[in-house]
């Protein structure tokens, strides 16, 4: 395909990408190079890279980065496993029960994130159902400590992120060739072997796709951490986004917060590179 033709075909999506991604990112880079607060918004002062250096020298930024990485390392595989198992089970169901179970499994995606998180937190409070149950089991009230809060954040993040991955896997399962499965049955393969040697290889690209989307999503994790922790520092649970929120909203350093946002984009790209290389190889091999 000629380069000109290629650009003609991709022009609409290129325009959208420029308008919604490149221009905002460019603005963030420029704002990150200026000293701006809400009071001085219309009179920014150019400070070069000092905001970027300030963020990089801030231990709180690196603490938030480390916790964000922990979330990614734990939740990406965990939610993929949950979603894949859920999709496999759903694939075994036919007729109206399939629609019912699918709808039930999508509830975390349908519920407004903040409302869902408030309800989730209330479950563990002394007046909540699980709080009451844990009190009965533990013999004392369930306490929000650094450890228990971090565990709750991980569980909640798995809960909210699994349905999307499940839908993707479920769609992928519909493309598995039934002849292959039937042939493997004749050859004596059991269900586990079929999943391992037919289904998983067939869905390899989707595993990667889900992982890439999740990594990007978890770098932007905000709502549930904000609501669960109530931004209480004793939980040491700031993610990169809650750190940036503090910077922009409580300290009112918009330039510094933008510098942090740009650095976050760079970090996302660094973390994503191995996934993107794998996906590229996957696609090339398929061709």
């Amino acid at each position, binding site marked *: 395909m000629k380069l000109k033709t290629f650009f003609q075909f991709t022009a609409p999506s290129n325009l959208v990408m420029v308008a919604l991604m490149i221009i905002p990112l460019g603005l963030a880079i420029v704002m990150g190079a200026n000293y701006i607060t809400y009071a001085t918004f219309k009179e920014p002062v150019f400070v070069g890279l000092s905001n970027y250096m300030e963020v990089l020298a801030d231990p709180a930024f690196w603490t938030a980065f480390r916790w964000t990485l922990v979330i990614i390392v734990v939740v990406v595989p965990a939610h993929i496993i949950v979603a894949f198992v859920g999709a496999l089970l759903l694939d075994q169901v036919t007729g109206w029960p399939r629609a019912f179970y699918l709808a039930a499994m999508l509830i975390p995606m349908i519920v407004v994130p903040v409302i869902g998180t408030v309800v989730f937190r209330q479950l563990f409070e002394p007046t909540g159902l699980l709080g009451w149950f844990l009190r009965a089991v533990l013999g004392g009230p369930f306490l929000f400590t650094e450890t228990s809060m971090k565990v709750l954040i991980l569980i909640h993040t798995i809960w909210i992120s699994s349905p999307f991955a499940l839908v993707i896997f479920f769609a992928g399962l519909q493309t598995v060739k039934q002849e292959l499965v039937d042939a493997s049955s004749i050859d004596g393969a059991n269900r586990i072997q079929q999943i391992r040697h037919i289904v998983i290889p067939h869905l390899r690209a989707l595993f990667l796709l889900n992982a890439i989307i999740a990594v990007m999503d978890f770098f932007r994790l905000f709502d549930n951490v904000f609501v669960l922790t109530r*931004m209480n520092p004793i939980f040491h649970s700031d993610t990169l986004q809650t750190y940036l929120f503090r910077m922009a909203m409580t300290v009112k*350093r918009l330039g510094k917060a933008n510098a942090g946002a740009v650095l976050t984009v760079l970090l996302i790209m660094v973390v994503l590179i191995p996934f993107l290389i794998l996906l590229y190889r996957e696609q090339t091999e398929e061709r």
Partner: protein
Amino acid sequence: MNKKHYLLSLLLLGAIVISACATATPEVVEEVAVVDPTACNVDPPDAPVEINVIGWSFEIMNFYAEEMEKCSEVENLEVNVQLQDFVATREAFNLAMTGGDESPFDIMHVSNPELNEFGNNGWLLPLNDLIDKYRDEYDLDDIADVSWDGATIDGVIYGIPATANTLHLAYRSDLLEEYGLEVPTTYDEIIEMCGVLADAPGIDLPFTMDVSAGWAWEIEFLAFIRSFGSDYLNADSTVAFNGPEGVAAATKMKEVVDACMPPAGLQSYYEETEVNINTGTQAMVHIWASNTVSMFDPEQSDFADVIKFAPAAAPKPGGLLGGSAWHDFYTIPATTPTDTDLIFRILMESLDRTSMLGAADLGIVTRSSIDKGLPNLAAASETIANGVGIYDPNPATSLAQAALWNWLPFIGTGEMTPQEALDAAAEEYTAEAIAQGYLP
């Protein structure tokens, strides 16, 4: 499709159009009928004017908003009220004030921190002239001085006080009687009371103040440090909160936490303690006056008949009472393109004496002549009058607050001593205050 189908389709379409017209008319009639055209006494403008109001939603402010909306009945006048949650409203303020030359809003509902910040940034219209002009017509001297104080920065008034709020005590009077306890007037007495009630059957928490988040700690700390005779910052914006009074205040808070709030109490927030009191698992709470409405209601509270209210206790014996004079105000953005005289009259129509009489059933109003109100009115009013006031309007105060949010909670968990936590907050504040030009 044959002719019969075409005919049927046409008939169906006709029926839909007729039924749509038939249902539309009564709705319009009904809407006109419920509005009281005499409620808003503003002269009609010569040309159509649209007034946009923004704020966040809670009962008494919703009531004022409805009063304002009645001005839409005046010819050529349309009042649009946009009520959201606080965070969304705050975001809309920032966008409106920083985004363009003209404010999209004509009236903004703010509370003390926003009034200080926006007033210091030059975003709000000084109202002194308009207040003088309409002082008699709207009996503006009826609004309490303590309320005007919160609206004033360096003698310039930026807001009309709409409602007041403070932290006072709510308690189970039956329990105090049973154990022979007087209502505490100091935190030392509260600590003693906690010792007595620690083993009371069914009581999980003798007393709580909200320290469930950094900002909650900081609100309580303001009450304690002011009562101990100090403040967050000195006049030159240098740190004062880690001085001896600040350390004594934080130490007293820690003593209260240790004596009254076993680990579960550290995570109790206002709404949760409201439930605790209503269900009988807590004896006393230091709580916002606006969070107590359920306590008067027998349908919501199992102990509505025995829950009583008292002014906030004094953190330091003989010092100021431990409750602030928090207010919500209506303000006018400095960059509004609309006639400010008209805007002022519309907002005053919602805050005149008649409106406030109606609002008094929903919260604490700011007119001194109105003495009717909720059962906690006396306790709240005394706390506001003899309490610690409100934040210093120094623009650097918000940075001090932000630093305290990040460090005070570690006093509660014992990870830091009061001195260590306050020094860490002071260091953080100083660095940021220098970066933002408040300190050399």
